[in-house]
């Protein structure tokens, strides 16, 4: 069906494998790229061929646009799939592909660029009539004008530095009396941190949910949506659990959010798969956050609920073919929940962890999908995103899908590198998860100080002892000679 003969998969890890498998199913040859450190990684071995594009540092390999293009040309690929991250939202790379006569499997460069700037995309959305978080942004405004604007927006308001980021120069103001003080503090913080004292106001949303809509623009130019995903459970502003449908979204709200998302995509001439992110407040009002102009990490929950292959649809669309399903007949079915397995320590600020995956077991259960970039012996190193695998469970109801996912996570074994596996299991066991009462501060509220399980169970200690003394390791069930391990000990000379 597709016009491509070979596609370069310009990514690594689980997403590269996931794309290669769809290409296999479509009968399209694949080529992978790898950094020197990833030469023997699963994704590098899974494709028909692999080009080492540079050293371990992503900036010199996976982000090296000219090396990636050379790899595409050198392997005779007629298209590049960028996955997510790396070069996927780089408009310059999309243009360079076109210039080299290679199809970029993704949106037009102009759409990537239009959504690339937060402030510019906000203006575009306002013009298109897509709701944005109400705010007040007039660089020259004096305190009286700002106070008046704050009254109009309604308290609490958020004072933010225009050039800000990372929480600096940001204050929540709950009542008018505290506004003047907050403005002066934010201005001095912003001046010190960014050299620009300009601040602006936004309505502060209390306990909003992160709900995003999967949109798709087909080759004919028609844009449609595939429902929503809720991704409110986040740490460090990054998602760890995602589900579809959202427990807060019914048919009527789905229709409204879907329409707003389609409008947003149409406003920038969108083609291919994209995601429009919204904040949804407890009253059912939603506001545009940003658009991700690429395949999303959590796309499997949508695939399971709608029974589609979004990567196949991306490839077909880029080749000018229909997406492989009829958008008018899409009906969501059941519930899917995805857990992201990260090499990180939830007991230590979710810091990324390095190590070797010494022992690995991934779940195999009905209704469970595993997207993994792991194998035993793989070195997890700090050069890349610490996402190791995604475990996604589908079932008829949210409760059943959650139970299935917990069982699957309990089946997982990853020894040798610290992961968030046990943390994920604990989150899925929270009554607040069960009730579906989610918001973006969910983890801070419900699991503020998690610590890893500790055990003095003799069975657990005996397992540690068995592994520690060498039994069952690669050499088999060998029982090490005490003489090899006794140190200062030596056998008695019984003849004396």
């Amino acid at each position: 069906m597709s016009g491509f003969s070979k596609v370069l998969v310009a990514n690594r890890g689980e997403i590269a494998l996931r794309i290669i498998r769809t290409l296999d199913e479509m009968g399209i040859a694949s080529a992978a790229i790898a950094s020197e450190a990833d030469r023997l990684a699963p994704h590098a071995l899974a494709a028909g061929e692999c080009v080492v594009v540079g050293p371990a540092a992503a900036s010199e390999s996976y982000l090296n646009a000219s090396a990636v293009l050379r790899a595409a040309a050198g392997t005779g690929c007629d298209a590049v799939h960028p996955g997510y991250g790396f070069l996927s939202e780089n408009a310059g790379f999309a243009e360079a592909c076109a210039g080299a006569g290679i199809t970029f499997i993704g949106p037009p460069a102009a759409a990537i660029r239009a959504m690339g700037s937060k402030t510019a995309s906000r203006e575009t959305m306002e013009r298109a009539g897509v709701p944005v978080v109400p705010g007040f942004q007039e660089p020259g405004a004096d305190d009286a004008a700002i106070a008046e604007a704050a009254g109009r927006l309604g308290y609490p308001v958020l004072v933010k530095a225009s050039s800000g980021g990372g929480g600096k120069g940001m204050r929540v103001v709950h009542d008018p009396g505290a506004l003047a003080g907050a403005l002066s503090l934010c201005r001095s913080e912003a001046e010190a941190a960014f050299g620009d004292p300009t601040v602006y106001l936004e309505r502060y949303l209390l306990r909003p949910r992160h709900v995003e809509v999967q949109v798709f623009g087909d080759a004919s130019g028609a844009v449609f949506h595939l429902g929503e995903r809720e991704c409110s459970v986040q740490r460090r502003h990054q998602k760890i659990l995602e589900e579809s449908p959202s427990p807060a979204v019914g048919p009527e709200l789905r229709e409204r959010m879907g329409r707003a998302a389609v409008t947003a995509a149409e406003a920038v001439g969108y083609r291919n798969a994209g995601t429009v992110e919204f904040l949804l407040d407890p009253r059912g009002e939603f506001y545009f956050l940003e658009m991700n102009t690429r395949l999303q990490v959590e796309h499997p929950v949508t695939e399971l609920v709608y029974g589609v292959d979004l990567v196949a649809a991306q490839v077909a669309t880029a080749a000018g073919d229909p997406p492989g399903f009829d958008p008018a007949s899409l009906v969501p079915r059941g519930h899917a929940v995805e857990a992201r397995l990260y090499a990180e320590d939830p007991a230590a600020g979710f810091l990324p962890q390095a190590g070797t995956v010494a022992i690995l077991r991934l779940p195999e259960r009905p209704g469970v999908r595993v997207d993994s970039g792991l194998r035993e012996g793989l070195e997890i190193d700090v050069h890349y995103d610490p996402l190791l695998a995604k475990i996604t469970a589908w079932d008829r109801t949210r409760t059943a899908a959650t139970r299935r996912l917990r069982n699957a996570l309990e089946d997982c074994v990853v020894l040798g590198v610290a992961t968030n596996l046990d943390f994920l299991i604990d989150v899925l066991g929270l009554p607040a998860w069960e009730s579906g009462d989610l918001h973006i501060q969910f983890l801070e509220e419900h699991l503020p100080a998690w610590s890893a399980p500790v055990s003095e169970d003799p069975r657990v200690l005996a397992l540690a002892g068995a592994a520690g003394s060498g039994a069952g390791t690669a050499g088999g069930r060998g029982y090490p000679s005490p003489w090899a391990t006794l140190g200062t000990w030596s056998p008695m000379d019984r003849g004396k």
Partner: protein
Amino acid sequence: MSLFVTVDGKRYALGRDAPTRITVTGPEAETTVEVEAVGGGAYLVTGPEGGGAGFATRIGDTLWVRWRGRTYRYAVDRSRTGGRRAPAPGGLTAPMPGQVLKHLVDVDASVEPGTPLVVLEAMKMQLEIKAPHAGRVRGYPQAEGARVPAGALLVDLEEAGP
């Protein structure tokens, strides 16, 4: 041989008495658990409170265990003479459970490095513990004939001054 780990301030000796038998000796109890390697890091555990399949591996000085849907990490405690609970500088410990057969040197005697100090019978073998350095024998915490767990202090040896 035994490994030592400290959990929640308590020191545990993990001793192998037989190819598939691990004795866990803590401050309060000693428990023997059958642990049979299945291969690929998997083990069949048979313990007093019920068994099952578990996974474990050692990487450097970290012992990794997966048991009933939870992951545990233990650091091998290399201080031979005990953790905070049992400070015994200069002493030497039993590397596996056994029976003290004989004290070889009188209390208060000065010894040279390599001098045999205690005979321990363990794993149907007689082993002798030798002085790792010159010093003075201050005493024997375990009497002759005593059955001792792995990690038990056998000799209190004061290191000779420089």
